[in-house]
């Protein structure tokens, strides 16, 4: 860009750097599956969907906790399930060499999936 595009704004470099990180995350987060990387591309897609479902389950669980209707025993069981689910996801991410940032898909005009 030839002209300064900041009409008004912060001089806080941390803020601007964070925005640049976001931009590079957007380019990195497009799905790129081709004949050479079909395994990792597919793993990324599947794990992204699993992560989305896991987060939805977690949010639903938090709503139930917030509702205050769960007994101590139910909270224990819920905690155990969610913790194991999260640990399993961590294992899978490690196995396929994926980071949290990888497990998000940029849907163009709709923004990020998560």
């Amino acid at each position, binding site marked *: *860009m030839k002209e300064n595009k900041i009409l*008004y704004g912060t001089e806080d470099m941390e803020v601007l750097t964070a925005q640049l990180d976001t931009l590079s995350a957007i380019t990195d987060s497009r799905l790129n599956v081709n004949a050479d990387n079909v395994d990792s591309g597919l793993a990324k897609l599947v794990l992204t969907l699993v992560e989305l479902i896991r987060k939805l389950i977690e949010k639903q669980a938090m709503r139930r906790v917030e509702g205050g209707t769960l007994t101590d025993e139910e909270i224990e069981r819920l905690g155990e399930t*969610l*913790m194991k689910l999260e640990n399993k996801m961590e294992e899978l991410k490690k196995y396929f060499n994926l980071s949290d940032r990888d497990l998000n898909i940029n849907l163009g*005009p709709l923004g990020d999936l998560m």
Partner: protein
Amino acid sequence: MHKLIYAIIHAKKESVCRLMNFDIGIQGIKGRELSAVSFNDIWAVVSDAENKDSEMNNDYALEFAAVTEELSHMFTLLPMRFGSLLKSDAEILKVLEKNYDAIRNNLIKVEGKSEYGLKVFRNSSDIIPVPELAEVKQAEGNSVYKNYILNKFNEYRADETLLEYSEELKTEIAEHILGLNAVIKCNKVTGGNNVYNAVLLLEKEMTDNLTQTVINLQSFHKELNMMLTGPWAPYNFVDITLK
């Protein structure tokens, strides 16, 4: 060889002739010559391009955006997504013809207007208080599973509180900007300390008024950092799927 489309513009023939004669000194990516394909009063600004894989990378994205920007100073335009390639001028002509009504309607919508970006950040993550957990607090006697749930619940409450704060901010900003006759499109916040993220479409001559409005808003909110950018081509206000 393919044709890379930069933007679709609405212009009288003479202005585009100037463009094609390079009186205005704009070149496409890799210094390629620009040309224009027209149907009625709409023109697709194009240059030659290799295939998608060899040229459609991050290195050329900025060059591409710079061309769009230069054009936006001279014409009302619809910016094309980087990497919009067609095989020939004839194919482009077909697209213009087939989508003429939709393209014209979009051009009318953005005529004389520019896009601006407004992002708001918290100075610190502490400015929005997270409610205390009243009923179930972490205690030494809790099991690892219960503490796990409590931590997650704290994160959940913090997210919900931030969401409520963002919604209130949206309303407040909308009220301030209302008088500028702007179209506001709120996007998802980008994470971290970002609490508001929107793009606005308004008349080019209202730029100073918008800047002043943001300065006023900033003076009410010392705890926030506001960043206004623009003017941009109307990237987020084109509602068209080319057939």
